[in-house]
Structure formats: structure tokens, C-alpha cells
């Protein structure tokens, strides 16, 4: 677009009082050669009318020197075909100047923000949405249990075509073996007849749903909007099975014959199977497997016939009256053990969540149903019946034949006649217990299918499985509290037991939500926009491959596995897997990756636009590259609270610290700036980065650049990463001051003026 740029400076909100507006306008009109107007309240109707008038006369790019870009976004949006760039004079300069501010320093700050904004306006372009050549809107649901059936039905009811792939020979999953199900609705106090049969019928008769039983996914290649799935008969091997990830070093060893190729006999991960089926997105609902609890020797599972798991007990109960496995005697007493840890540990069995408490209550009711004289003992450390399920617990409490107590179970012994002796301490009776029972039921957990197998079987360069599973004990869960469907694999949404041990009621909601996300991903791809967290973003990374050296850093570092390799070994972007964080752009040493409105040249030019005095040792210049989602709002809020921010620092907001390219650091230091600090999110296991790895990658890169700086005779301490949360508005001034003090200690950049 041929740009016609005009700048506007607002003098409201204290800006006019704090700054020499005339001088500031001259910087814009003179140095930056951009016509500049001022207004006492740019966001007012009159202010916007002034800008609208100029737009009518041909201005198409406006520079707004006023408040933070986080506010007044609608007011300064002049349409999709206009560019609007903001210089944050209010929060980043005037409101954080402090009462004793030196007017000269403040003026210099403001001038730099106007220079940067004018440069940004010059370098930025209107985004053009990325469009797939053809898009497939069908949804693949992996797993035919409650979660998969629900997701399929809900998506189909919204008008989408769905295919369910179920490994076993029948739909229904675990639920087909239930005698009864836990309450799913008010009044939450009684067991319900299983609804799985009805659910299966609805699915089988739905015109939008195709069901494939006895079938597994060998691999899924491609990207949202055009996934290509290869199926196979359950339990068989296929040349299209998803290949394991092979790193560059491993490939070397394989090539030298020093390592066995894990993918021998398999099709290359980039090979496209002509016989595959196309889909737009995937719901992963492959569920769980009952945990093996035979390792708890004092409880006797696997050794004593009458000690069974909850899953085994349910299967028995669904077939008829419950009898003792050893001799078929109808049971008269059953002990349900919730916690295996004896005196040392009061946790439930692993992989439990609250479901197992509820299942124990349900099964205790089965014992009573079969024989009103029978006794059920539920021995727990903590009864987990959260929320409305408390009302179900109360039903069990009201049954005299169900004996519930906190208890530390120390052992289960076979008495030789088929009956068992359960020993427990620390009970609510204030005495130790010895229970003589016919059977013991252990509350074994629900291990997600992703625990031991890749399951989703993606033919991605980064490997076939979800990443970071170890953070969630193998569950395909999200790290984000507020965004439970976000993982590192765009277009794949997990639900049900594969994500968490859940009740049927929770699973139904979870699966319906996953169906929504699968639909939303498809519709976003269709519109050519990004999904969460930059939802609606029309920009996408563009690559200038002629200069690519195939170093593969972008491919390796992309948190979302968006890049594969093409047949020549050049990175192959899958744009609809991309979340637009710019980590690839930050990683690229050749600087060939960029977005229309956010690229290496643009930010680099903005940095170079900062005026660096080379004759004044007091006027050091520090660059701060700031995460736009957390640290930048924290700076805004610090300013709103009128905290003083160090006026030697210039802030530039970045999409994510992962997008920070090393060359920006070099740009800053070679133009004479004295230090660079990166303000980003907390990293580690409880990372807060919404692009997962951004701040962590930036930290690693800064360690590396430290070595480079050292070789140039510059102190590595001139560059640093600080972890800042959005709520750190009271402490962020000190974080910045401390860094500035360190730079003052080091003295001016020796390259200043060169």
C-alpha cells in the first residue's frame, strides 16, 4: 500500500502540561518528515473528526501520540484498510515521569516514542489473511466412549460432518459395563440408569456421523483445515504408522549405522498417503485404562482372588448379583479402600481425582441393592465428593448399611476361607478397626491412554505425541487455568478421561467444549485468521526461503510444531498450525521470517530510531523489550498508579519474548545504547507464557548472546531477561531501576559514537 502518513499528538491527560508539544511536533515534522497535528483530546469526537477529515483527503496511515495502545482501541481504529500506530506518550512517558521529573529527560523520552512510532508506521503493512487452497470441514473424533460420542453428536448437531474412529469393535467405551451411572443432574442424589445405549443410538442414527469401529489412527499428517488421516485395523502395524521424532544428532548416528532407525519400514513423516481421509480438526477422546494396583502388596491385589479393583467390581456388578470371585458366594460385606498409603501417605490411589470416591459410593449402593442385609464399608482418608456430588454422598450417608469412615488401611489378609481381614487405624470411632469382609475393592485410578502411547499419532517433525505430557502426569491436559483446551498442538482438542479422571457429567461438558473448539478452529482457518491466543489475527509468518541455511532453529523451537521439512530439507511452514507468536522469527539467524505488521526490520528500525546522545555520560539509553500481554500492561498500570519509571529506558512491546531476534540486541548496542532488558513471563513447569516457551527461549538465547558480547569486549551483563507478572505493577519500577543501576555501574557502552 502506498502510504500517506500523518501524525497526531494529543495534549490531554497531562501530556500537554508535561511536554513541549511544539518541540515534539517539530521532531515529527522535521526529523521524521511527517506532517504532525495536535489536539487537546484526540479520542474525543472532535479529535477523531479531525483525523477522519484527513483520511477523507487521502491519509491512510495515522500515528497517534497519546495513550497506551491498550486503551481507546475502538476510538483510534479507522477501518480495516487503514493503519493506526500508537505512541504511548501518556503511560510510558508522562504518567510515569514522577513529580521531580527532569523536563529535558521526559521530552527526550517522548521524542523517542514519536520517532519509533513514525518508523513503525513507515515499516508496517496491512495484513492479508492466509487462505488454504481447499479446506475440509469434517471433524475426526478419536475414541467412541462417552467423550467421543458426545463430541461427535454435539458437533454433528451444529451441522458438521463427523467421523468417529473407535479402536474396539463396539461403541460405548467403559460405560457399556456400568450397572448404573453417577448422577448427572439435579437433584444429584441418586444413581441413574445408564444412558450410554441411548447415546450410541443417537450417534448411529445421525446423518452427519460416520462410525468406524475396530479401527485405529495410524497417523495424522497435514494441518488444521487439511489434516490427512490414515486408518488401520486395530492392533495391526502399518507402513503409515506415525514415525518417532528423530533429531539431527540421532539422524547422524543412524546415517553412520551407529543407531537403529526407529522408523525403519515406515513411510517418511512428510509422505502423503493418497488413500488417507481429509479432516479439518481432531477431537482426542481416547479415554483411559484402569491402573494396575498390584504393586501395593499389603492390599493383596493380584494375589488374593477376592481383592479386586473398582473397574473389575463394576464389570461383575453389571452382569448380575455380585459374588465372591474365589467361590461364587453372594457377598454379604465389602470393604472399599480409597487410599493405599497406610500410615505414611493419606493420598488416594494415583490417577484418581474425585471419581473414585464417587464410584466407591456407587458400588457400595450396588452391594446394598443386591442384598439389603449386606454391609458396605467405605474406608477413606478424604471423601472426595466435590460440588453438587455432596448431595449424592449424603444419600450414601443416610443408608445404615453403608459404613463410611476415615481410616488408615494398614493391610488386607486372606483368612483362608475366602473371607478377608482388613486392618485400619485412625478412624472416626477413635479406635482401630478389624473388618471381616467377603471382598475388598481398591479404588484404582484412571490412567490416560496418552500415558504410554503417542495416541494422537501426528506425522510431525517434532514427533507423534502431545508435548509436555510429563507436566500433567501423562494426561493430555492444558497448562492454562483459564484456557483449558489450549495445548501445543493446534487443531487437536482433548477431552474426557484422556485429559483428566472425570465423572460422566464432567465428561459431557468437556466433550461439548472440545467439539466447539474443533469447530472454531475450522472456521478460523476458513477465515484465514489465527486461533487462540491471538485469535482473529490475520497476519502470519512469511519466509524468504532463498536465504534459508536450513539451520532448523525455527522448526525446532516452534512451540506448536508448525514447521516440518520439505523434500530438500528446507523448513515447510504449516500456516494453520501457527499461533503467530513469532518464535520462529526470533530464532532465525538469517532474519528471513517476518509478519506484515511485525518483523525484524520494523523493530530493528524502531530501535535505531531512538536517539542516543554520545556526549553525555548521564544520558544512558536502555532498551526494554516487553511482552505485550503481561509486562506491558504491568507498565501501564504502574503508570496509572503514577509510579515513577526510569526515564533512561525505552519500551518496545513485543508479541512474545520468543519473537525477540538477537539482531535487535546487536542493533541496540551497536547504535550506542547501553543495555537491553527483556521483560517477559515466568517460565519453568508452571510457565505463564501463553506461547509456552517464549520467555524460556529468550532466556536461553540471551545466555548465548552473552558469550558473543564477551568476545566483542562488551560485558554480558548489559543484556538480561527479567520475569515479570502482570500484577507486578508495584515492583516493576524497581526491577527496571536495578537493571539500570547495573548498567550505570558498568558505565557507558564503549562503542557509543562509533
Amino acid at each position, binding site marked *: 500500500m502506498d502510504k500517506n502518513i500523518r501524525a497526531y499528538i494529543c495534549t490531554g491527560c497531562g501530556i500537554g502540561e508535561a511536554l513541549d508539544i511544539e518541540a515534539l511536533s517539530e521532531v515529527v515534522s522535521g526529523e521524521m518528515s511527517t506532517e504532525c497535528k495536535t489536539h487537546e483530546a484526540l479520542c474525543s469526537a472532535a479529535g477523531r473528526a479531525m483525523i477522519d477529515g484527513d483520511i477523507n483527503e487521502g491519509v491512510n496511515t495515522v500515528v497517534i501520540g497519546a495513550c497506551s495502545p491498550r486503551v481507546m482501541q475502538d476510538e483510534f481504529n479507522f477501518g480495516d484498510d487503514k493503519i493506526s500506530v500508537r505512541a504511548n506518550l501518556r503511560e510510558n512517558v508522562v504518567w510515569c515521569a514522577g513529580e521531580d521529573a527532569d523536563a529535558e529527560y521526559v521530552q527526550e523520552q517522548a521524542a523517542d516514542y514519536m520517532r519509533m512510532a513514525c518508523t513503525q508506521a513507515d515499516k508496517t503493512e496491512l495484513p492479508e489473511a492466509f487462505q488454504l487452497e481447499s479446506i475440509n470441514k469434517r471433524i475426526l473424533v478419536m475414541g467412541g466412549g462417552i467423550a467421543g460420542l458426545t463430541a461427535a453428536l454435539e458437533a454433528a448437531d451444529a451441522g458438521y460432518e463427523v467421523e468417529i474412529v473407535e479402536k474396539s469393535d463396539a461403541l460405548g467405551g467403559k460405560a457399556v459395563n456400568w450397572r448404573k451411572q453417577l448422577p448427572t443432574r439435579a437433584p444429584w442424589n441418586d444413581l441413574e440408569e445408564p444412558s450410554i445405549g441411548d447415546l450410541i443410538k443417537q450417534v448411529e442414527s445421525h446423518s452427519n456421523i460416520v462410525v468406524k469401529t475396530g479401527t485405529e489412527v495410524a497417523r495424522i499428517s497435514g494441518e488444521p483445515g487439511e489434516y490427512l488421516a490414515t486408518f488401520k485395523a486395530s492392533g495391526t502395524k502399518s507402513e503409515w504408522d506415525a514415525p518417532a521424532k528423530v533429531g539431527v544428532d540421532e539422524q547422524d548416528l543412524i546415517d553412520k549405522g551407529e543407531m537403529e532407525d526407529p522408523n525403519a519400514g515406515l513411510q517418511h513423516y512428510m509422505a502423503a498417503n493418497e488413500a488417507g481421509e481429509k479432516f479439518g480438526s481432531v477431537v482426542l477422546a481416547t479415554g483411559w485404562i484402569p491402573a494396575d494396583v498390584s504393586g501395593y502388596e499389603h492390599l493383596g491385589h493380584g494375589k488374593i482372588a477376592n481383592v479386586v479393583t473398582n473397574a473389575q467390581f463394576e464389570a461383575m456388578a453389571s452382569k448380575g448379583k455380585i459374588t465372591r470371585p474365589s467361590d461364587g458366594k453372594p457377598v454379604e460385606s465389602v470393604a472399599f479402600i480409597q487410599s493405599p498409603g497406610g500410615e505414611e501417605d493419606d493420598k488416594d490411589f494415583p490417577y484418581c481425582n474425585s471419581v473414585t470416591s464417587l464410584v466407591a459410593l456407587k458400588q457400595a449402593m450396588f452391594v446394598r441393592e443386591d442384598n439389603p442385609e449386606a454391609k458396605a464399608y467405605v474406608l477413606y482418608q478424604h471423601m472426595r465428593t466435590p460440588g453438587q456430588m455432596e448431595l449424592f454422598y449424603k444419600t450414601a450417608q443416610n443408608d445404615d448399611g453403608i459404613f463410611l469412615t476415615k481410616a488408615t488401611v494398614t493391610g488386607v489378609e486372606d483368612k483362608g476361607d475366602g473371607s478377608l481381614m482388613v486392618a485400619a487405624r485412625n478412624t472416626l470411632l477413635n479406635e482401630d478397626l478389624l473388618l471381616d469382609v467377603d471382598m475388598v475393592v481398591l479404588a484404582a485410578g484412571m490412567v490416560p491412554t496418552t500415558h504410554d502411547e503417542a495416541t494422537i499419532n501426528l506425522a510431525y517433525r517434532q514427533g507423534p505425541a502431545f508435548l509436555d505430557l510429563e507436566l500433567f502426569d501423562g494426561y493430555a491436559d492444558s497448562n492454562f487455568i483459564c484456557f483449558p483446551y489450549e495445548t501445543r498442538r493446534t487443531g487437536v482438542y482433548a477431552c474426557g478421561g484422556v485429559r483428566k479422571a472425570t465423572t460422566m457429567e464432567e465428561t459431557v461438558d468437556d466433550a461439548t*467444549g472440545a467439539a466447539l473448539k474443533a469447530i472454531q478452529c475450522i472456521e478460523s482457518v476458513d477465515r484465514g485468521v489465527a486461533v487462540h491466543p491471538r485469535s482473529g489475527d490475520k497476519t502470519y509468518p512469511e519466509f524468504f526461503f532463498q536465504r534459508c541455511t536450513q539451520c532448523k532453529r525455527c522448526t525446532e523451537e516452534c512451540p506448536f510444531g508448525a514447521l516440518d521439512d520439505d523434500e530438500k530439507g528446507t523448513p515447510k511452514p504449516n500456516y494453520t498450525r501457527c499461533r503467530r507468536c513469532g518464535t520462529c522469527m526470533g530464532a532465525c539467524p538469517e532474519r528471513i521470517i517476518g509478519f506484515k505488521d511485525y518483523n525484524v526490520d520494523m523493530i530493528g528500525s524502531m530501535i535505531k530510531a531512538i536517539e542516543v546522545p554520545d556526549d553525555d555520560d548521564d544520558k544512558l539509553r536502555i532498551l526494554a523489550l516487553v511482552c505485550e500481554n503481561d509486562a506491558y500492561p504491568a507498565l501501564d498500570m504502574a503508570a496509572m498508579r503514577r509510579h515513577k519509571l526510569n526515564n533512561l529506558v525505552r519500551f518496545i512491546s513485543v508479541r512474545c519474548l520468543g519473537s525477540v531476534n538477537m539482531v535487535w540486541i546487536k542493533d541496540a548496542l551497536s547504535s550506542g545504547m547501553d543495555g537491553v532488558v527483556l521483560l517477559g513471563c515466568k517460565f519453568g513447569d508452571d510457565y505463564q507464557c501463553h506461547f509456552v516457551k517464549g520467555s524460556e527461549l529468550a532466556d536461553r538465547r540471551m545466555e548465548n548472546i552473552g558469550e558473543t558480547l564477551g568476545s566483542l569486549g562488551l560485558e554480558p551483563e548489559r543484556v538480561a531477561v527479567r520475569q515479570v507478572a502482570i500484577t507486578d505493577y508495584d515492583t516493576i519500577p524497581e526491577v527496571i531501576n536495578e537493571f539500570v543501576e547495573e548498567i550505570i555501574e558498568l558505565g557507558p557502552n564503549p562503542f557509543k559514537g562509533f
Partner: protein
Amino acid sequence: MTDERSAPGAGGVLVVGGGISGLTAALEAAEVGQDVFIVERNPYLGGRVAQLNKYFPKLCPPSCGLEINFKRIKNNRRIRVYPMTEVKQVSGSAGSYQVTIETAPRFVNNNCTGCNACVEACPEDRSNTFNFGLDTTKAIYKPHDHAFPMKYVIDADACNKCGKCVEVCKYDAIEMDMAPKSMTLEVSSIVWATGWNPYDFNKLENLKPESSKAIISNMMMERLAAPGGPTGGKILRPGDNKEPESFAFIQCAGSRDENHLEYCSYICCMASLKQITYVREQYPEAKVTVFYIDLRTPGKYENFRDRFKDDGNVHFVKGKVADIVANDDGGVTVIAENAVTGDKVRETVDLAVLATGMEPAAKSAGAVHGLTMDDNGFIISDAGRGMIAAGCAKKAADVVTSAQNSTAAALQAIQASRR
């Protein structure tokens, strides 16, 4: 985002409530392509989670996710937001509801730049409801630091109409004569994400919250620990600002109790454990006692409980608290019976935190709008009619569960609009 200045279209989804559940339902539907209206009673979006210091178990600030959600709203022209607005009447039937909404006067219009000059001029104070009355704001005020929309508001009950704010406002943003405004929306379905209120702890007669300032609710504790709270994030005893040396957390304060809330409020066990981490951060030696019936920290939350395993100053006592007695030094004595040993426990502490539960906010109003409610005031979804409950309006739940069922609600709303 488009606001009330633009005319609403027909056939959209109405989301009642702009907390995390309403925001989630609205955004997830809008990002599929649906037109969505959000009405929110407060002058800001974010609801209860905006008042939380951190989320469990990650201990991350809720404003981080809210910032993303607000950005999603700003960037999505399918969403219209009506703060300070309540639903007055619902008529029509599935697929076509006419909903009358009423916006209370904010007395501050869209010209507000957030410059704060009005606050400096205002002579009147009001109790800060956002901080549960632990401090005050001026009668004209910014709802809180991270408020969205970032516009000020006048509390009519506190304002003396002196006009000083009008004089200092350079932007003609204050309209003392602003009147309530009604309008009717035509929608195909309604997501009720009306959320919850903390159970009124003054009803807990044996725990006597009125007898001492050393007895606070868990939500007050969130504000005391929050950087934007009344004490700048320093946990101090209300009234005398003492740095507490000992704490009692009293679980199920109202929940799992036939006389109050018969259900479990789901979040309180984890919330208290989370709050112990706030205490630990500021007072490494403080003594903490937790009185509980069951510790409901299932699944991955057990790992969170592990962090107190080796903390010799954190004690868990299984037992319901029978009484709290105010002491002359400003502290209180908590009296309970240990359910396992049978011993009577008397614990004297500087601050007692009642883990008060959640009460559905639509409890009293819901039936008026033709909603089906259960005995406890939670809304029962009727997806077929396009009347859908989400978040804690549906059941007591944590943030993750609320976000899940609100995402589900978005799909049910879309189905209703496509039928």
C-alpha cells in the same frame, strides 16, 4: 468490540454475566462467527476472578488470562458489551427471545479518558465493594486497576452532587443527569453465566464474624494478598494492621451444612491451601492451622498439598469448628473437636479465615426469567430451549471446570441459533 453506540443485530446469543464463564462463552461463540451480546451488572468485566490474587494450583494472576480475553473482545467486532446492565424481562421462545435489558447510569460517558482528575477533586468517600469494604474509594472511582472498560463510574449513593468532578473534567465525560436506559435485544439463545456470591458469613452464627475484625472471609483474604488490594498486597489484620503471626483456616464455613449450603462449594479446600502459600511468602514462620472435614484436593491437586508436607508450622486438623471467641488482644480463639482423636482443640490465632462457599447469584432472580432452578438456586440448562447455564450459575466449580462448561455452552448456543 463494538459498544452500545452501534445498533445490535438480531439472532445473536445473549450472555448474561461477564465473569470468566460469561467471557469464555461469549468469546468462544464469537470466534466461531456468532454475534454475541454480553450484559454485566458490574461497571467492569471479569467478575469474581478479577478479585482473586492468584489461581490455584499454578499460582498465576487471573488478570493475565483476563488481559487476553479483553484483547480478544477488543479485536472482535461480533461482540457487544453492556456493563452496569441487567436483564429485566425475557419473552418469546426457543430460537427467538426478546430480552429487555436496562443499563444503570454510570454518570460517566465514553469521553472518559481515565485521567483521574475527577477522583482528585471528589470530596466524598464510599466503601470499596471490590475490596469487600476493607478500604474506601471516592464517590467517583475507577472500579479497579485492571478494569475493563477502563472508564470511571459514580456511586450515586455516595455522591453529594457537588459537581466538583464536572468542573475538573476536561472531556465532558461526567453527566450528573444520566438516566437508566432500556433496550430490547432479539436473540436466539441465552447463556446464563450469572456466577456466584460469597455466602454471607454473617449468617454463620457460631463463627461470629461480627465479633472481631480478626475473622475474615476467604475472598477478603484474596484482596488482602492482592497487589491492588487495600493493603497493597501485605496481609495485615483489618482494624489494627497487625502482621499476623498465626492463622486459622476454617473450611466448610457454610458449605456441606444443612442449615446453610447443603452442597460442597468445590473450591474452598484448594483456595485455602493457595492462601497458605500467600501467608508463607510473607510470613515464613507463621503458624497455620486448617480445620477441615475432608481435604478435597483430588487428582493433580494432591501435588499442591504436598508442598506443605514438610512445613512443621502448617497443621491440618480434621474437625468442624464449633465456636470462635474474640480475645482482648485483637485475636480470636478457635474451638473445635478433633474428629480422629476426640480431643477438644483450642487454637488462639491472630487471624481466622472462613472458607465461605459460593451461593449462585441467580438464586432469587432466576425464576423470574422462566429459568428452571434446582433447590439450591443453580440453573438447570435446557439446551433445547436455548436457555443454557454456564460456570458457577450451573454448579459449584473451579475456574478450569467453568471454562470447560462455558465453552460447551457456547456450542449449545450456536446449535440453538442454527436450528
